[in-house]
Every structure is written in structure tokens, then in C-alpha cells.
């Protein structure tokens, strides 16, 4: 029998519909794959096999009756940031110890309404703060990819490291993820998978643990561009429960796949050619340019002059919002409580024990930049710079550019417990240098695998689009995927 976990979502969907396979068989195959691999990869924090098989059974009944939904019987992994009713939801943090919500996030509810099956909750950086998945209370996730001839463990990127690793290792057909500064696109690039952060307001944030509310967006990580399009269509919705959800109907993203690029104008921003960028990344970028040109796109050089200020502005805005959002974890209403001699002592002990190092660091920065006397110098300045960053993109789009092509990350995956990265927080933050601009401007961005480096590790390209024009991103990313091919991690786990 063929390995059912090798099927893409599109393939599985067709076979389920044709009754060549059942949702129960498909779900069973994934549960077995997780059992075999998770000890090595640590991608899942918890699995929900009983719930999965129950949902699969219901899917089989609907498929038999001929009324299956868009994702009927498709087994998915869910990032631990999404509230899932009665199931572990801790944002990979100790402070939410034992938390099981009595509600379901809008995004996951949309997926279940379309017939998807939940396999379990995926590991991530604590509160989605990180670029390596090493800040998780549940330990680091290992990247299914290793350099050729090496047995050194690499990070899968972050914060959606569990989502990316599970998709790359075929421990789910697709996964939910979130992206505040690059947390979908950077791990996708590190694992040879496709990840899209949609426009701010496209997916409801309701029921997702908040990190930085003006930047957070949910999106899928998938094995290929078509699967990402299928997943995003189900995840996205207009939701009255999220005041920033935008009233625009969700299009059929899959319909644009395979559409020719003639008439599409692609901008190449010179500011993304940064000092110390490996030659391989530059080569990959040039390769991407020529693929798109060959496919009929027009290539134009553009300038986004405030690019270099996006990351420093982000490290004011995101921690400021985080320090406010994370104030709710006080040992009173949910999660961990560490006793103290009075109530303030209890708060301080609970938060000292419950939050990890990176989370504390960001709360401290956020508290400082918002504190009396510093607000104007830091926060207000950063929000003004953010206006300029957005204007750069608006100018490019106004000049007729349909999408912007950049590298996804400044390097391939690095080692777990990398000395240099871990001793200098700023060095770790630089991982998001190409992705963070997109969050600051609220735009959609997709990372698509485009090649392997000389060590055999995946590298990705990023496409940035106009607000609510995810369709052009899927259309263009598919052209890159067709030219580059797909990349699978050789199995060692």
C-alpha cells in the first residue's frame, strides 16, 4: 500500500471524494507517523488521537453521503497558540499551565466546519516570541532537514517551528501557524515548505493567544502552493468577533493557480541586498527573478528606503503590545500560580516562574518603552517610522508593481543551541529582517521553497503583495514552485 502521508491535501481530497481512501485510514496513517517520529522531532506538544479518529469517522459519514466540506477528512496540526475547546492551549508557555479553553478560535472553528480533522497541538516558541523554536517550555523542535552527511540537529525556525517541522516530516497534511514578524515565513523557508501570512484582517484573531495585536496574523504552512491556497480559503473569514476583521469576501485562491504571469509587474527592492548576505541567497534571488521573467512577468527595480528601520521599529512596537497583552497572566484567572507573602508577591513569583527568558526580555523592553518619559522617544517614534515603512510599499504599488520578490531569510537553518545566536538577542532578531517589514505594513507575504544551498538545506523566496491580493501571491509563487520543484527532507528520524 502506498504511504497515505505522502499525499498532498489536494491529492487526498480527490481520493477521499472518489472513495479510494477513507478519512479514518488517512488519519490513522498520520497518527502512526507521529507516534514514530515525535520523540525525535518534538513537533507535537500533545496529540489528540481519540478526537482525531472521532472526527475522521464523522468525515467518512459525510463523504459517504456526498456532502463533504472543502477539507473533509484532511488531518491537520494546530499551533498551540490557537484556542481549541477542551484541548491543551498554552502558547508553549509554563504560565498557562493546564489551560484548556471552553471556546474554539474562529480559525480552527472554520477548519472543523469544513471537515478538517485535528491531530494535536504543535510546538512553538513561547508566546510566538522567537525565530528558532528554542524558547518553548516544551523544548526545541528539530528540523527534519540536516546538512548533507551531517547528523547535527538544526532548528526549524520559529515561532511556528512545530508547524513547519510537522508539515516537512509529513506528520500532518497541513498546519495552522501565526506570523507577527516572520513566524510563518521564516520556518517555512527553513523546512522547504510553503507558508503565507495573509493581509492583516484577513483571518480572525479571535481565540488566538495574543502577542502583538496590531501585527499578529494567522495563516497556513503547507507542502505546496496549492495546499496553502486550499487551507487559507478555509481559515480566512469575516468575523464580527474581531474588530479588525475586514469585510471582504474570501476568494477561491486555488482558482488562480496555473494562471499565466503575463502583465504582472514584479518589483525588486535594492534595500534587501544586505551586508554579509551569503552569496547563495543572492544567487537564489537572481534565479527567482529569471524564472518570473521567463514566465512572462515584467521585472522592475524599486526602492523601499525605510527597510532597515523596520526591525528596530518592530522591537519597540511588538514588545510594547506584548507587555500589555501579557499583563493578564497574573496567577488569578488561569494557569500557573506561585504563592507569595501578599498579592503583589504572588503576581511577581508567578510571572517570574511562568515566563521564559525571551518572554521576560520582551515584557521588560515593552514596559520600559511605554513607561513615563520614554513613550514619545521610543513608541511614538516607532509608530511614525511604521507609517513611513507602509508608505514605501504604497508608493511601489502605486507605481504599478503587483508583487515584490525578496529572499525569505538571510541564511539557511542554523544549529540548535547556536552559540552566537543565543548569546546575542539582536543577532537572533536579524533572522526576521526580510519578513518583518510585511507585518509592519499589514501586507500579505508568502515564502516558497526555491532551492537548496551547497549543504543541501532548503532556501526560500518571499513574495509580498498588495493588501488583500493574496491571489497574485499564490499565482506567482506557483510559478516559482513549478520552476524550482519540491524539496523533501531525507528521512533520518
Amino acid at each position, binding site marked *: 500500500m502506498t504511504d497515505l502521508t505522502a499525499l498532498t491535501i489536494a491529492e487526498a481530497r480527490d481520493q477521499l471524494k472518489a472513495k479510494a481512501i477513507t478519512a479514518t485510514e488517512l488519519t490513522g496513517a498520520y497518527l502512526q507517523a507521529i507516534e514514530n517520529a515525535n520523540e525525535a522531532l518534538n513537533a507535537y506538544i500533545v496529540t489528540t488521537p481519540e478526537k482525531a479518529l472521532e472526527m475522521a469517522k464523522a468525515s467518512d459519514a459525510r463523504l459517504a453521503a456526498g456532502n463533504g466540506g472543502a477539507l473533509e477528512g484532511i488531518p491537520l496540526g494546530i499551533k498551540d497558540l490557537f484556542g481549541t475547546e477542551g484541548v491543551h492551549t498554552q502558547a508553549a508557555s509554563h504560565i498557562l499551565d493546564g489551560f484548556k479553553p471552553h471556546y474554539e478560535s474562529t480559525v480552527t472553528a472554520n477548519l472543523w466546519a469544513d471537515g478538517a480533522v485535528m491531530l494535536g497541538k504543535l510546538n512553538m516558541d513561547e508566546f510566538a516570541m522567537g525565530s528558532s523554536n528554542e524558547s518553548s517550555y516544551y523544548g526545541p523542535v528539530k528540523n527534519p532537514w540536516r546538512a548533507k552527511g551531517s547528523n547535527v540537529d538544526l532548528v526549524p525556525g520559529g515561532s511556528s517551528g512545530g508547524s513547519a517541522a510537522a508539515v516537512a516530516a509529513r506528520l500532518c497534511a497541513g498546519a495552522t501557524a501565526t506570523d507577527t514578524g516572520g513566524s510563518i515565513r521564516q520556518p517555512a523557508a527553513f523546512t522547504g515548505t510553503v507558508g503565507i501570512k495573509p493581509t492583516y*484582517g484577513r483571518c480572525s484573531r479571535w481565540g488566538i493567544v495574543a502577542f502583538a495585536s496590531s501585527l499578529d496574523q494567522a495563516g497556513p504552512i503547507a507542502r505546496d502552493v496549492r495546499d496553502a491556497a486550499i487551507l487559507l480559503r478555509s481559515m480566512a473569514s469575516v468575523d*464580527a468577533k474581531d474588530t479588525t476583521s475586514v469585510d471582504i469576501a474570501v476568494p477561491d485562491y486555488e482558482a488562480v493557480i496555473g494562471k499565466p504571469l503575463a502583465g504582472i509587474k514584479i518589483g525588486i527592492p535594492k534595500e534587501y541586498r544586505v551586508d554579509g548576505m551569503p552569496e547563495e541567497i543572492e544567487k537564489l534571488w537572481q534565479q527567482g527573478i529569471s524564472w518570473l521573467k521567463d514566465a512572462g512577468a515584467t521585472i522592475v527595480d524599486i526602492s523601499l528606503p525605510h527597510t532597515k528601520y523596520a526591525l528596530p521599529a518592530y522591537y519597540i512596537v511588538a514588545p510594547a503590545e506584548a507587555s500589555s497583552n501579557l499583563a493578564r497572566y497574573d496567577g488569578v484567572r488561569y494557569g500557573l500560580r506561585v504563592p507569595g507573602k501578599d498579592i503583589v508577591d504572588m503576581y511577581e513569583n508567578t*510571572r517570574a516562574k511562568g515566563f521564559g527568558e525571551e518572554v521576560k526580555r520582551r515584557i521588560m523592553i515593552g514596559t520600559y518603552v511605554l513607561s513615563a518619559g520614554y513613550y514619545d522617544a521610543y513608541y511614538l517614534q516607532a*509608530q511614525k517610522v*511604521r507609517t513611513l515603512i507602509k508608505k514605501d510599499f504604497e508608493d511601489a504599488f502605486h507605481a504599478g508593481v503587483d508583487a515584490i520578490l525578496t529572499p525569505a531569510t538571510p541564511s539557511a537553518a542554523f544549529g540548535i543551541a547556536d552559540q552566537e545566536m543565543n548569546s546575542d538577542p539582536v543577532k537572533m532578531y536579524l533572522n526576521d529582517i526580510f519578513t518583518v517589514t510585511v507585518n509592519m505594513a499589514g501586507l500579505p507575504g508568502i515564502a516558497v521553497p526555491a532551492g537548496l544551498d551547497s549543504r543541501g538545506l532548503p532556501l526560500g523566496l518571499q513574495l509580498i503583495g498588495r493588501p488583500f491580493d493574496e491571489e497574485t501571491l499564490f499565482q506567482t509563487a506557483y510559478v516559482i514552485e513549478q520552476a524550482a520543484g519540491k524539496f523533501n527532507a531525507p528521512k533520518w528520524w
Partner: protein
Amino acid sequence: MSVDTATVKRVANLARIAVTEDDVSRMTGQLNAILGFVEQLNEVNVEGVEPMTSVTPMAMKKRQDVVTDGDKVADIVANAPTTEENFFVVPKVVE
């Protein structure tokens, strides 16, 4: 701008995070590295630039001022570390 250990202690207190002397000296170095990195924002000429308040050009949606939810006390206290008769229990605040 940079922070000293006294400032770090004050910020930790504002953030309600207990810190040891070791934490303070480590955090002081790390926070200064980050503050040094963000310093470059001062180069940007922001004269006449409005601070961003929303990335999407939209007015915040407002719902009808009606009760749409409620009667779920048990759900609300279900995840609390200590409860008593549908109340959250905290250490004594008033003597």
C-alpha cells in the same frame, strides 16, 4: 539611551516580574544591547509624519449594544488555580 541596574529593577517591578541580582545584571546587558539596536530610529526624519494607528484603512467595527453572551460562570472560572463559589480567590488584599 541606556538603562542601569536600578532602572531594570524598577521596570521589573512595573512588569510584576520577580528578579534576582543575577537576573538584573544579565537583563541590564541584554536590554542595553536591544536599546542600542533600536537607537538608529532617531536618524529618521519624522517631521509631519502621523504615527500609525491602524495598518488597514478602516474604521473600527462597532456592534449593537446588546447582550449576546453570558450565563457561563462555570466556564469562566473553570481554569482558575483557586476558586470558591464562582469567585476567583486571591491572597488577602485588605487587612
